[in-house]
């Protein structure tokens, strides 16, 4: 072995140290970069040379740059990001709905509802008083206003949920196309290489996938080329270098459905912010919105029933206090139209119904709330169908695929208003002969506040409303608890990831010294070799 061999060893040492210093610098530079995984230059003894029967060392080589990365933790993290996304969407939406029912700050219906019934008590003590009558009308209008405001608050929230779904779908598409682009680059860089060395690209892709996981739940796998396939709702979102676009469409209920690759995947999305928003809007609709509408519908129904039986100061009877309930219908038929009217408001259950037809020409009326068959029979074209105080009539030809729905609740708030404008018509008396001092009908209405109401499941008006408040309170509490839980878990997992993949400045500082020293020693070796050569040359 010649002296020049020493140069080679020294040179390899300098190069290796320089590479290690570069890796260290890169680590230090990215100490605050999210998703960055720390790297380490891998040193190995260079292939030795055989010299007169002995194997002599040939310096050092860098065999690769290791990325400190644990696929297992990353998979767990993705799952937790999905949970976190869901919880945060639930928490955000439910805490807003909760504010609409915030009785702790006297926001809500409890005060206007009691005020309304108190006004009836005042009327009962002074049945012919004009002050009491106009006060009652004013309290009734306040109640109407409060209820409408609450409904608007809820529907505004549902609309903003729809908007959020649109926005998130757009972001999902942006991420998907970025991941697809990165897939292409990774495949290109790593082509033919045995090691996964497209480290920066992989870091980038992980960051994007983490963000995607907070938005929507997905399954993913990496093929042997390093390309990541991502499936959301069992359809391909990203496959190789191509991505499919997630689109939204408004469905019959007025909600946004998610379509991927032309298929409705709404039902398959359970987690991430999208999953959270989809589940929370159903919760809000069935619990808060329909609950509130049912409460008001019962109030209208019960008050009107009593009020119609009484007499106003002007001797008129059969007057509605609130504008009467109206049915709203929806039509899933091409050839037929349906109209529905209330024939007996005392029999209304306030449930929604669906009317279907079978192949043998029978009609089937189902209660949508509990799924029971209400009535059925042979359908005679043009003749009306009656059930539970409702009569429907259909024009046109029906087929077995036609479906109609009838709901007394949908338009409750829209039509909710005080029907009495002339205070004389407020019916405090139960008989025409006993005017004007008779207060017995007013007393019956006062009593209504304490009565249990069949259409509210036997609850009183105030206890049913209390139920609505406690339901939203519990849901909001549960959402905020699970957000805290998911946040902690996420932080725990991130800590785990950081523990392995994060950059420690102390460590890197030590490495700096270490590689600086080895660089300096390598340089010294060159100097010594040079001196040795000089010695030779000087001979």
């Amino acid at each position, binding site marked *: 072995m010649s002296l020049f061999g020493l140069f080679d060893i020294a040179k390899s040492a300098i190069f290796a140290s320089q590479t290690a210093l570069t890796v260290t610098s890169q680590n230090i530079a990215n100490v605050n970069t999210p998703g960055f995984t720390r790297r380490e230059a891998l040193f190995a003894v260079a292939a030795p040379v055989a010299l007169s029967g002995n194997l002599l060392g040939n310096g050092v080589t860098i065999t690769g740059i290791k990325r400190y990365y644990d696929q297992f933790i990353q998979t767990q993290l993705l799952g937790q990001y999905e949970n976190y996304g869901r919880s945060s969407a639930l928490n955000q939406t439910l805490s807003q709905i909760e504010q609409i029912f915030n009785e702790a700050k006297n926001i809500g219906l409890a005060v206007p509802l009691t005020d309304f019934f108190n006004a009836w008590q005042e009327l009962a003590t002074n*049945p012919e008083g004009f002050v009491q009558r106009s006060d009652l009308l004013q309290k009734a209008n306040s109640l109407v206003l409060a209820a409408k405001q609450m409904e608007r608050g809820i529907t505004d929230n549902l609309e903003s949920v729809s908007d959020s779904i649109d926005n998130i779908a757009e972001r999902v598409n942006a991420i998907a196309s970025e991941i697809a682009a990165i897939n292409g680059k990774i495949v290109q860089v790593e082509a033919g290489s045995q090691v996964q060395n497209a480290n920066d690209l992989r870091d980038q892709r992980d960051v994007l996938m983490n963000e995607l996981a907070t938005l929507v739940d997905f399954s993913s796998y990496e093929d042997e080329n390093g390309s990541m396939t991502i499936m959301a709702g069992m359809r391909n979102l990203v496959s190789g270098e191509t991505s499919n676009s997630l689109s939204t469409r408004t469905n019959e209920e007025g909600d946004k459905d998610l379509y991927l690759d032309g298929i409705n995947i709404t039902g398959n999305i359970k987690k991430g912010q999208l999953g959270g928003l989809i589940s929370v809007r159903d919760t809000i609709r069935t619990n808060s919105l329909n609950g509130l509408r049912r409460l008001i519908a019962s109030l209208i129904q019960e008050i009107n029933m009593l009020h119609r039986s009484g007499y106003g100061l002007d001797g008129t009877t059969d007057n509605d206090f609130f504008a009467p309930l109206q049915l709203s219908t929806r039509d899933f038929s091409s050839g037929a139209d349906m109209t529905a009217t209330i024939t007996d408001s005392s029999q209304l259950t306030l449930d929604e119904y669906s009317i279907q037809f079978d192949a043998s020409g029978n009609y089937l009326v189902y209660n949508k709330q509990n799924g029971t068959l209400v009535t059925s029979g042979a359908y005679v074209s043009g003749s009306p169908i009656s059930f539970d105080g409702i009569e429907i009539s259909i024009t046109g030809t029906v087929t077995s695929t036609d479906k109609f729905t009838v709901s007394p609740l949908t338009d409750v708030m829209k039509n909710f208003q005080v029907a009495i404008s002339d205070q004389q018509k407020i019916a405090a008396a139960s008989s025409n002969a006993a005017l004007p001092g008779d207060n017995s009908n007013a007393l019956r209405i006062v009593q209504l506040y304490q009565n249990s109401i069949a259409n509210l499941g036997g609850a009183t008006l105030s206890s049913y409303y209390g139920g609505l408040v406690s339901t939203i309170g519990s849901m909001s509490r549960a959402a905020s608890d699970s957000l805290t839980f998911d946040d902690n878990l996420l932080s725990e997992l991130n800590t785990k990831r950081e523990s*392995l993949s994060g950059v420690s400045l102390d460590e890197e500082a030590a490495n700096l010294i270490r590689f600086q020293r080895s660089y300096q020693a390598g340089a010294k070796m060159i100097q010594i070799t040079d001196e040795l050569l000089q010695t030779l040359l000087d001979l």
Partner: protein
Amino acid sequence: MRITSFMIFNQLTRSLQRNMEDFAKLNSQLASGKRIEKPSDDVIGMMRSLDYRLSINNTEQYKRNIEEANFHLQFTDKVLGSVSDSLLKLKELLSMGGNDQTDENRSFYSNQAAEWRDFLLELSNTKLRDRYIFSGYKTDQVAFSYNSSTCHYDYNGDLGEIQIPFDTGATLPSNIQGSEAFSFTLEGPLPTELPDGTPLNYGQTTDPSTGVTTITIEIGNSGDPDYDTFSISNLMDVANVMSYAWQYKDITGSDLHSDAAIREEMATHRLMALSIPLDDAGNQVLQVQAEIGTRQVHLNDQNARLDNAALNLKNALSKTEDADMEQTITEILKTETALQALRESASRLISQSLLDFLK
């Protein structure tokens, strides 16, 4: 475990964040004085406080109702006091204006009786806040009015009781019907002859729709020249009969009899026969006043009970939703200390690095 710079920072910011959150929450509790600021803070507590508040609200409404009912009853009681006094005066007239009076005296008594009659009519048609208080439900009509064709006083009201709710499911009438206060029934064994031995018969029938009792008085034997019968159905009728009797006249204004002696005897008999009805009418008014008293006692008891209940409810409400100030302040101090310690340790932790020691 390998600790990295990011972990330290992350841990630190999270701890600071959590601490600040606690701090903010406690501060807002201190500011509002409320432990529950939204339903999810304490769902059960929220429900309880909602319940308490509704109950307090109900209680306050019942108290307002009681006040109103009490006002009506008190007013009615005052009016009935005057009625009672008037009846005493009539009774006095009756005992003074017996037999052998001069025509001057008779006309004086007659005028007096007529005045009391008109006063009673006024009393029966008392208004409170635009309502005739003795007309039952028909508060827009005078309770009693003079019917010029029958020459009697008619009751225009009904039996309506204006019930006032004073507790859950409990009501109490705030009015007295005119038929109860101004019309009356004769009680107990009734005499069958006048002190002078003339046969006497009291008959009475009550109209179930108005509650007015018509008392028919028969004096003497049917067919006798001095046989006399007349009817009364309320206090005004009684005074009216008295007023005319002192003038030897029937209420129609015609003489009781063409013969002066018989006429005088008949008038005397009439006045004598009215003595018992007048006593019973007085008793009836006293009974009604007693009834009003009972109702007032009932209402006052209830009022006291409601006051008590409201106090208990308010205490319970405060216990449920109010923040315990001492505890909150202690908690704030604790959080503050923790926050300070955290900041101090953080400043040491993040200011140090190996790089500081490499010179």
